[in-house]
């Protein structure tokens, strides 16, 4: 998303910066619309944004993406493999759609 698809319109922040309550990062998520992408059921990204009253406009759970795309199997943590790469692209496309619906 931020490097290839919409480099001028999107940016990513380090989630741990929110976890440690970094002032600049907390301000950023309050002043800009946010979309969270979570890898597991704990939904840390969404919970961290909500906890700091960020402007949450959408959230994607990768587990839902896997359910929606059963043929795309991610590989390992270190190497997501071709299935994981495709899943990442589909997730990026879904994120673009959320951004498009907002505009």
């Amino acid at each position: 998303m931020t490097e290839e698809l919409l480099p001028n319109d999107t940016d990513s922040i380090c989630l741990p910066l929110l976890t440690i309550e970094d002032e600049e990062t907390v301000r950023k998520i309050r002043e800009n619309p946010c979309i969270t992408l979570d890898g597991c059921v704990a939904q840390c990204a969404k919970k961290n944004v909500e906890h700091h009253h960020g402007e949450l406009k959408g959230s994607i759970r990768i587990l839902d993406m896997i359910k929606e795309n059963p043929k795309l199997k991610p590989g390992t943590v270190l190497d997501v493999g071709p299935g994981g790469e495709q899943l990442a692209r589909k997730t990026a496309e879904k994120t673009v759609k959320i951004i498009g619906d907002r505009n």
Partner: protein
Amino acid sequence: MKIKRKIGLISCSGEGLPEGMISRVATRRILEERDDVVTICLPLFLAGGQEERDFAKDNPCITVDGCDKMCAAKGVQMYGKVHPKSSIVISDITEKHKHLKPKSKSRIEPQDEKLVKETMKRITEEIDKVEEEEE
């Protein structure tokens, strides 16, 4: 009999900068090589329950951070109320070895392998020191 505690390796997840990618990959590789280390996702300190918050109290921790904001080290202090036993910062390494500076936030390029290996070497050295202290 004294039960040997596992060493906690806590990495910054680094979505915002290439050095974070290096810290995450180096930490993960160590975790897959050794059985005397454990980890926790850093954001779980806030999003998880008491068990997650107690992780840093229950395990001597080594933090691996991408930049000098040192989220992992600060997270351990903030939520675990303890200091990490040791802290490694990738940007300190690239400051001294500028040719190793990574560029991609989303993947490890072949030229980043040297930095990953250097980071793994430092993590291993710190694990050995902490294990000596624990004995």
